[in-house]
């Protein structure tokens, strides 16, 4: 990986060269943002944990007309609690009780963490 100190020095130099009021910090942020988009655009995305990709069959990743709530961006603790309540039968359900029973606690945790990180 990059030697951060050298990179910062290079940035400072570049910022000074560009001038025009763009400070090193702002340029740094630009590059970070650019780097982030480039990374998502070009690299392989991390793989979802076992079972997670199937959830999107019903839980839409974006807004569609459905009564089923989305998972992406929800608190991991919330997803975990709901899944455990479905699994134990505490929470009444149509299909989620049948599905939750197919997952271990560790698998549910990994899925909850994954969806909490998705936007």
């Amino acid at each position: 990986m990059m030697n951060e100190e050298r990179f910062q020095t290079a940035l400072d130099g570049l910022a000074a060269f560009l001038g025009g009021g763009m400070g090193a910090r702002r340029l740094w942020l630009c590059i970070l943002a650019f780097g982030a988009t480039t990374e998502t655009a070009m690299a392989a995305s991390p793989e979802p944990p076992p079972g997670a990709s199937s959830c999107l069959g019903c839980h839409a990743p974006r807004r569609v007309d459905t009564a089923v709530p989305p998972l992406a961006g929800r608190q991991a603790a919330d997803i975990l609690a709901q899944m455990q309540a479905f699994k134990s039968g505490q929470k009444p359900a149509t299909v989620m009780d049948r599905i939750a029973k197919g997952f271990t606690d560790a698998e549910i945790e990994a899925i909850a963490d994954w969806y909490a990180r998705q936007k």
Partner: protein
Amino acid sequence: MLKLRPLPTGTPGRNDGRRTASAIRSTRRQFLASGASAAAASALVAAPPALGQAAPRVVVVGGGFAGASLARALKKADPRIAVTLVEANRTFTACPFSNLVLGGLRSLDQQQFGYDKVAADGIEFAVASATQVEPGARRVVLASGSALGYDRLVLAPGIDLDWSGLAGYTEAAAEMMPHAWKAGAQTLLLRRQLEAMEDGGVVVMSAPANPFRCPPGPYERASLIANYLKTSKPRSKLIVLDAKDTFSKQRLFQNAWKELYPDHLEWVALSMGGKVTSVDPSAMTLTTDFATHKAAVANVIPPQTAGHIARIAGVADNTGWCPIDPVTFESKLVANIHVLGDATIAGGMPKSAFTANAQAKVCSAAIVKLLAGEAPSQPKLINTCYSIVGPNYGISVAGVYVPKNGVLTDVQGAGGVSPTDAPRSVRAQEALFAEGWFNTITGEVFG
């Protein structure tokens, strides 16, 4: 690590595509393996990793729930992979919910989707039929004569109707006795016939033996035809002649039929002489070992096989279906070819759109790993299938699956069907979730 390693440029070894030689082209493997870290480095300094190198190529044949899902999932998982989707039609007509079109509760255009958004993801959309697969040369030949090279090929051809599977049932016969098992013109034809039928006419359906696309489909269809007869042709009746004694969600369907359609639906099991052995479209008759049924309208759901191209590629076995590795969905018969959806022998997983979509996402993750020379992760998959029995009356079956002993196996203690004793409010809720599912999955695949 800002500079990319020079890559070996050797010619990839040719092989006959069989299991003994499934090596990944080393150039492409290194492309992806080094690409991840290269892309993490600043793009300000490093050249884009794709420059000057061949991106790995994945060709997908079939743009249904399996193929279109795979193409999009793969492109999203790693945009550096060149993905081509080969599909003969510019418009996809979804089978799930097409029984509502037959029942007069939905229009066919609500079933139809284009590929604009798929193409907008950077997937090359080739409107073409694949006519040949050369596993050794890793090429797919199109009807035009042109060919597409691949590192990995994904076949998602769905089903073909087995025109030799039922005496008298030919493609010409299907114009008189529609199967409507591929949604579109056939759906509209059967709908028009039902509408044109006189009140008092008998509708006869023939349901096939396992396996076939959409196991609860014939019974959802029977329900929705019965609903139409009850409301619009009250002196008419539907007779379902079945080549099976048991079927998906059976108790739920039969309870609902007793409650909703006692005078409009009669189911004849295999053991009661239900198996249709021949049909005669000119006489509009369906014959079993015990009787000949004259129909005003006949819906013949014939035996099925994996889509044509799967059989041409050699990935179908003598059952007509495709054995796959349950982790990668790679064919057990031909290396570097993956098979998805209805065409597969997927153990406990039924031939459903939900299954096709779930398999596609797992297969996509596996292909990314395989192209990078890494071991694919052990997956877990879910299926959920809704059936609409009548307005505001939905039922479901669900399952959770893991690879075990080389097949996808039900996780014990999970899955199963809706409770038989559920109140109507639960049926209404499931009907609502069914519609939400359709909107969600079509949104994910085509939206």
